């Protein structure tokens, strides 16, 4: 079970949280203007990386609020959490801690 650092409540067990899947997927501004493939990519296509993954969590059995987390999908270790609406920390993976070092930490 993961220990997740809720920005509002602090460290709590995963069973208090619900994972909302990949973060930063914006609904198209004007759905009627995009083609079916672009709509499919919005609805169904996911990054699914082996490495750092930005994802949404909701602390349902705590503050009840959504937030984002950056997690290494190999070690499952959460690198950082940040507010909904905030940009993903680090413009690229290179700006963030090396997942291999995070794993051994």
């Amino acid at each position: 079970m993961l220990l997740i650092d809720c920005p509002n409540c602090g460290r709590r067990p995963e069973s208090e949280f619900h994972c909302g899947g990949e973060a930063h997927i914006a609904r198209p501004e004007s759905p009627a203007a995009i083609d079916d493939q672009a709509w499919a990519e919005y609805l169904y296509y996911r990054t699914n990386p082996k490495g750092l993954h930005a994802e949404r969590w909701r602390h349902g059995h705590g503050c009840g609020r959504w937030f984002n987390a950056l997690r290494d999908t190999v070690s499952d270790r959460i690198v950082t959490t940040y507010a909904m609406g905030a940009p993903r920390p680090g413009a690229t993976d290179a700006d963030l801690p090396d997942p291999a070092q995070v794993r051994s930490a």
Partner: protein
Amino acid sequence: MRRFSLASLLRESTQGHQGWERQWRAPEPKKEYDIVIVGGGGHGLATAYYLATVHGITNVAVIEKGWIGGGNTGRNTTIIRSNYLFDESAALYNHAMKLWEGLSQELNYNVMFSQRGVLMLAHNHHDVISFKRHVYANRLNGVDNEWLSPEECKAFCPPLTISKDIRYPVMGGALQRKGGTARHDAVAWGYARGADARGVDIIQNCEVTGLQRNPDGSVKAVETSRGVIGTRKIGVVAAGHTGVVMGRFGLRMPVESVPLQALVSEPVKPVFPCVVMSNAVHAYISQSDKGELVIGAGTDQYVSYSQQGGIHVTNHTLDAICELFPQFTRMRMLRSWGGIVDVTPDRSPILSKTPIPNLFVNCGWGTGGFKATPGSGHVFAHTLATGEPHRINAPFSLDRFRTGQLIDEAAAAAVSH
């Protein structure tokens, strides 16, 4: 290939079993193949086998990052059934069921296929209605499935409690008598042996790192940790790592990879005659021929490649097992493990062409791919050989996520997701 027979067994038993040959070669990759299959699990090896036997294409390589059958083929709970609701799914999984029934003879390799029956339990009114609908739909599709009362469930599976005093009493069950189990490793090994004997190269410890394309965009070669291998066609059959491999080829996929856990108990004498699964309370249990109870747990809620999951997930399943089978409360669990399964939005697999010409993909089997191994390999071999999908796998295209023709198969696995 030296065939197994009563005569060969008797001869070897008098000679200390020293005469058995290696079951497949360990060749160096050739410069070029007609078809390269990425992924040496059951589905990939079955694809290679049927390419050789059905389509006569033997200049084929199966390249595998680790060792064959070392991924989800060796980690699943070996349950086989075909009682899916929709016409498309019933056709695909029942195609596999028909191949399972003759597989040991066809491969000359004992895959220990045992049609001991798969019983799906209903615990609430919705389950009852839903399962009866499955029974009727299955019968129209020629798939065996029948409704049992709680007493009939108890007669079929004596360890089951049908007491009214448990939290979610059994209200009946849907039984597929043709369902059962098979030896998962033997399936990979049998297909590998059969494919190798017909000239297919099985190349282990060989990781795919990239793709080379012709000026027209089509597949030219695959880059691997053991060099560049030229090929006219590629079939990616990489299960939980499909997204990783396709990412190296520059494609995003409508799949997410999550851990799925299983565990086995200490071995005991034969005590459990069939397979029982319950979606509602999440129990999933059978007994292996070694005597271990084989228990399937659920998926974790997040994307992961860790091949392990949360202990609360297995705990949840054991709660249900102890409630339904009270005599197992004192059993000790020996081992637990996780596999990484690639789950699609509609819980149905993808056997399809891709936007890159001559690149094909067989993935998205999620939590229930083992049961389909022979059928999946058979129709995917057709797709690779002809360049067009078989009638059975045509609905399982990548394009369905664009057209909206999803196959929203809630029965895709016993586990909730």
